[in-house]
């Protein structure tokens, strides 16, 4: 009988034949090239053949944020809560590339501060479609701003050809300015960059360069001191992307919603809802009958 690894092997090599083909034992499954459509449990069997696949450690604050997100979205058993209506079934958090010198706040012009960030989004797979994306800043809760502090943030998002910042291809950069407030005991600031990122991710660009400029004013006129800003914003932001994984093994909420509705609707409504084509066909058939 076929072992799970062989099954994984045939899955990864894309063979669709059903009869089991024992894989040559000496040839390790190439987990790296396996399409990431394998569910993670199967993927680990594929990776098992790789010599201790190295795994970079994520940033602890980012991990803490994602654990909170997991708790908010699921029941104790890990089942997605059914009361959520949005369509994303995948959320990925990326931290800026380490090899890129740790971005630092640099005084640019009066009160302007800028940060250069490089993100590699290779983990986003082809079936995953971007629905929303935010830059996530973690705040030191020791620093608090007055409620009248408002910030303007200028973003430039470009596709970078390779990892070092000096060779950015100069497609027209997407720039956007956003306004947001530092709220009391908010540990995180989210800056929505969906409109900037969408075209790049949709065109399969996976190395993204984001330049962020901040300027903050208190009571609409006095610029916030740089030191305060420096202290408050703890570290380079993470990039959070909300995706709809359209592959077969991903959970599609609207399918289960449709399933539930189908069982709640009256028969005629149900047909209309589920088979609008059917409705049109019957209409056109009636029409043609009249004509005849």
């Amino acid at each position, binding site marked *: 009988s076929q072992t799970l690894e062989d099954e994984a092997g045939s899955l990864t090599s894309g063979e669709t034949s059903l009869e089991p083909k024992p894989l040559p034992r000496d040839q390790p499954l190439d987990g790296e090239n396996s399409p990431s459509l394998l*569910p*993670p*449990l199967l993927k*680990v069997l594929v990776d098992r053949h790789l010599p201790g*696949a*190295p*795994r*970079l*450690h*994520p940033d602890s604050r*980012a*991990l803490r944020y*994602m*654990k909170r*997100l*997991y708790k908010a*979205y*699921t029941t104790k*058993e*890990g*089942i*997605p809560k059914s009361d959520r209506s949005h369509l994303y*079934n*995948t*959320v*990925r*958090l*990326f*931290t800026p590339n380490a090899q890129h010198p740790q971005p630092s706040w640099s005084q640019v012009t009066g009160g302007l501060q800028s940060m250069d960030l490089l993100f*590699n989004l*290779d*983990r986003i797979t082809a079936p995953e479609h971007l629905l929303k994306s935010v830059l996530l800043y973690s705040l030191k809760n020791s620093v608090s701003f007055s409620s009248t502090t408002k910030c303007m943030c200028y973003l430039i998002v470009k596709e970078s050809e390779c990892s070092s910042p000096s060779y950015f291809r100069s497609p027209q950069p997407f720039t956007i300015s956003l306004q947001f407030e530092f709220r009391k005991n908010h540990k995180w600031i989210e800056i929505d960059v969906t409109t900037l990122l969408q075209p790049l991710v949709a065109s399969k660009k996976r190395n993204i360069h984001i330049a962020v400029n901040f300027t903050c004013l208190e009571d609409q006129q006095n610029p916030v001191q740089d030191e305060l800003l420096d202290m408050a914003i703890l570290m380079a932001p993470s990039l959070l992307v909300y995706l709809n*994984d359209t592959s*077969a*093994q*991903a*959970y*599609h*909420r609207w399918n289960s919603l449709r399933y539930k509705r189908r069982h709640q609707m009256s028969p005629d409504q149900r047909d209309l809802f589920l088979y609008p084509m059917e409705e049109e066909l019957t209409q056109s058939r009636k029409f043609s009958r009249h004509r005849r």
Partner: protein
Amino acid sequence: DERTGDPKAKSPKMPVSNNLSEYFKQFLFPENECELHDFKLSFSQLKWDNWIVAPHRYNPRYCKGVCPRLVRHRYGSPVHTMVQNIIYEKLDSSIPRPSCVPAKYSPLSVLTIEPDGSIAYKEYEDMIATKCTCR
């Protein structure tokens, strides 16, 4: 009722424990019939907890047991299942009896650390069996 009929007729043997529900249970649910069973595993047992951050424990459940001959009323099985059972019993016992398999599933959310250090929250379909059937 000892006043009428043959006094020697035995009244049905009442269970010593007088626990009626147990007594009747043997008629309603024969032993080891097809049903859902738990199997709680933790990813640390599989040494996968270095990349699966949540959930810590996972109960995929499984279906096990003998398929009764009359499966329609309880398992919603197609008529084919009864036909297969009759073939097995009357014509050719090399034909397998109907099997006890999952009929419905629920999804599972998994929080993982990817090889590049990014973190992924993903919801997967059909990860926990929630109902069994005979097919």
